[in-house]
């Protein structure tokens, strides 16, 4: 009996210890003994997070000491950063002071964010600031801009432009595809018709003498980021998500033509069949393999493709041009104040610091692409694409409408259209469904 009692007491003790372990590790404020306040800021791993880490290190060692603020960078996983933040926001968690946000989700997150007031945003691209403004309130500070370019093989295009026999083949293909005998033109002059004929010309399925197996690679996976690339085609053809009255406009002639362009390229074998599941890394790998002549790709890709170590077969042969159709989606990764954060004033001080050209110059030097045109132009020697980024965003960048369900709209459009992009479902049915679903999201 005594041993039973001992076991029972032991079990009770274990339970108590377990419960104690489950409890919070203790509250208290975030101020250290010397008065330095610690704030927590989220970033995702990768080039942007790495660059931010260096800027934060510099802040902690310099300005942070004067401000009596220490910033702790919390790296979540790249793929699930927004999912984890969503869960934290839903529980009104106050542990993290600065969230990692983006143009495409700031509307949805706005209920958990504190509007930013009194921070100078005049150094940023206006389109980047607009994309982070919801109901006339700025909810995030632009950090890293992303847009699209046509990345193409200069050697292949130059050969085509300088070889009359090749140009004749191209012209014949244009006659078949477009009904007009076009001549090849330099990449920076392509429209979306040229893009289509070029895709055919550099594909062995249409041109057995093609130096590459496929002309291009479409990013056709059911993924919200792929909607952003398809949007370039939609905008390039004169369309948009909404009409002038703010109603969904995917089932317009432009919307159908944009989906049809993808479907034609896919069904005719001018992109690989596996591009049905392609996104950024697959596109990058396809270009690096030398099997593909060009692609609409994210700005961050250019430097790696011209790096002999990362892309030995094509480095030095990659050109950069505006997206055919002359429209590029622009979004900004950004930083926002947690409405429930424990140290809002200190967090705002840090954001004000990050809004300076000095901080963003340090960010560019650390490998990021800051959303400040003057900083980009002043640091072209760091990344040759900086000048193109600055020019393209200022001249023909657009931001999709910001509304509470913007993030969901990107996902829903990918879900509704990706089947049609690869010829699995009819274009008419897909755009009709997409339009109805987008309207429902706009109405909510």
């Amino acid at each position: 009996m005594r041993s039973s009692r001992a076991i029972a007491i032991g079990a009770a003790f274990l339970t108590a210890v377990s419960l104690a372990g489950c409890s919070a590790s203790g509250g208290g404020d975030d101020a250290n003994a010397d008065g330095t306040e610690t704030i927590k800021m989220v970033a995702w791993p990768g080039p942007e997070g790495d660059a931010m880490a260096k800027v934060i290190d510099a802040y902690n060692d310099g300005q942070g000491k004067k401000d009596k603020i220490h910033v702790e960078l919390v790296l979540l996983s790249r793929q699930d950063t927004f999912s984890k933040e969503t869960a934290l926001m839903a529980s009104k968690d106050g542990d993290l002071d600065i969230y990692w946000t983006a143009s495409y989700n700031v509307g949805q997150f706005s209920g958990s964010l504190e509007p930013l007031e009194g921070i100078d945003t005049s150094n940023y691209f206006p389109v980047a600031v607009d994309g982070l403004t919801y109901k006339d309130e700025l909810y995030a500070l632009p950090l890293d801009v992303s847009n699209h370019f046509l990345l193409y093989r200069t050697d292949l295009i130059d050969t085509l432009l300088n070889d009359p026999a090749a140009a004749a083949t191209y012209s014949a293909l244009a006659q078949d595809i477009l009904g007009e005998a076009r001549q090849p033109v330099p990449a920076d002059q392509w429209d979306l018709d040229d893009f289509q004929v070029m895709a055919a010309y550099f594909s062995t399925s249409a041109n057995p003498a093609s130096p590459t197996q496929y002309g291009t690679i479409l990013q056709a996976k059911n993924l919200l980021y792929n909607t952003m690339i398809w949007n370039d085609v939609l905008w390039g053809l004169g369309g948009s998500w909404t009409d002038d009255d703010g109603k969904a406009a995917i089932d317009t002639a432009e919307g159908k033509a944009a989906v049809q362009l993808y479907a034609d390229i896919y069904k005719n074998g001018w992109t690989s069949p596996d591009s049905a599941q392609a996104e950024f890394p697959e596109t990058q790998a396809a270009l690096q393999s030398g099997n593909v002549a060009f692609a609409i790709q994210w700005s961050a890709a250019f430097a790696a493709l011209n790096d002999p170590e990362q892309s030995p077969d094509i480095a030095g042969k990659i050109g950069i041009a505006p997206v055919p159709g002359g429209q590029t989606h622009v979004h900004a990764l950004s930083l926002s104040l947690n409405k429930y954060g424990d140290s809002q004033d200190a967090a705002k001080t840090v954001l004000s610091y990050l809004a300076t050209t000095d901080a963003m110059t340090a960010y560019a030097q650390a490998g990021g692409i800051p959303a400040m045109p003057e900083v980009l132009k002043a640091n072209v020697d760091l990344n040759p694409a900086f000048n193109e980024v600055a020019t393209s965003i200022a001249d023909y960048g657009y931001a999709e409408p910001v509304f509470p369900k913007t993030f969901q709209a990107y996902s829903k459009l990918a879900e509704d259209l990706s089947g049609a992009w690869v010829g699995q479902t009819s274009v008419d049915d897909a755009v009709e469904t997409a339009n109805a679903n987008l309207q429902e999201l706009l109405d909510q």
Partner: protein
Amino acid sequence: MTGSALTPTAVRTHRRRRSLTALLLASPLLVFAAVFVLYPLITGALTAFQASTLLDQSNEFNGVDNFVSLFKNDGFLRSAGFTVGFAVVVVAFEMLLGFALALLMNRAFPGKKLFFTLVLLPIMVAPALLGIMFRLLLNGDIGAVPALLEQFGLSVSLFAPSSVVPLLVVLDILQWTPFTFLIIYAGLQSFPRELLEASSVDGAGRFRSLFHIVLPTLAPVLFAAFFLRMIDALRTFDVIYVLTAGGPGTTTTTASIYIYKTAFEAGDFGKAAAAALVMLIVLLPLVPFIVRRIAAPGKDGAR
């Protein structure tokens, strides 16, 4: 000797003490279950009846609105249909192959240990990691497998819309057959050999022994393997999410992917909780039946 001398009061006291001890010993598990099972379950069920989105965190009771919204469009039903179809096909193959492998491994042959280890390798890899590995290995533009097949004149596009569902089925079978094999093999190890010897003496052939002796005796083990695998297959997420994210369109969207996207992309926790609750309610009645089959001894397995 003393037991027969105990008074009824002493027996009651003894029983009460034993119950108390049992309760205290079980208390860590009960606390764990209450905190990590019961609380999330109740919270989840309550959320299903609340307006709980990122934009509206009031958590106001909204009756069955989330359920109505769930069934208003066919996204959830389509994903549930795909999930059930996918689970039935993969588990059927995994049971058959696992059983065949277990029978094979139940014999002695050269290199058995090495083969055994190789067979078990796929379940030692995290599903998400396996998804990333397959994504790199099987992609027609960059993958080693298509490149290797190309050397033999075989051109394959495993991620094309026509082949992506069969690909996912094959990958699931590759990864999870070792699991069913392991459970069935463990059951075979404790199989009473004298039964087979007796049937052999009675003149039963291999197939007759298999269908009339081995299968009925192993029924609880087979049910356990089937049940565990079916539960897992019905919540399939990782590999499919990494490889296709549920596309093209919604072709490969499982119920788990639907729930994940509803919660974390749409930010609609109420609707996601409603979907999870519906899945739970649909699956719950199966549990007592299957548990009874697993727990049942002997041939017929019924009590």
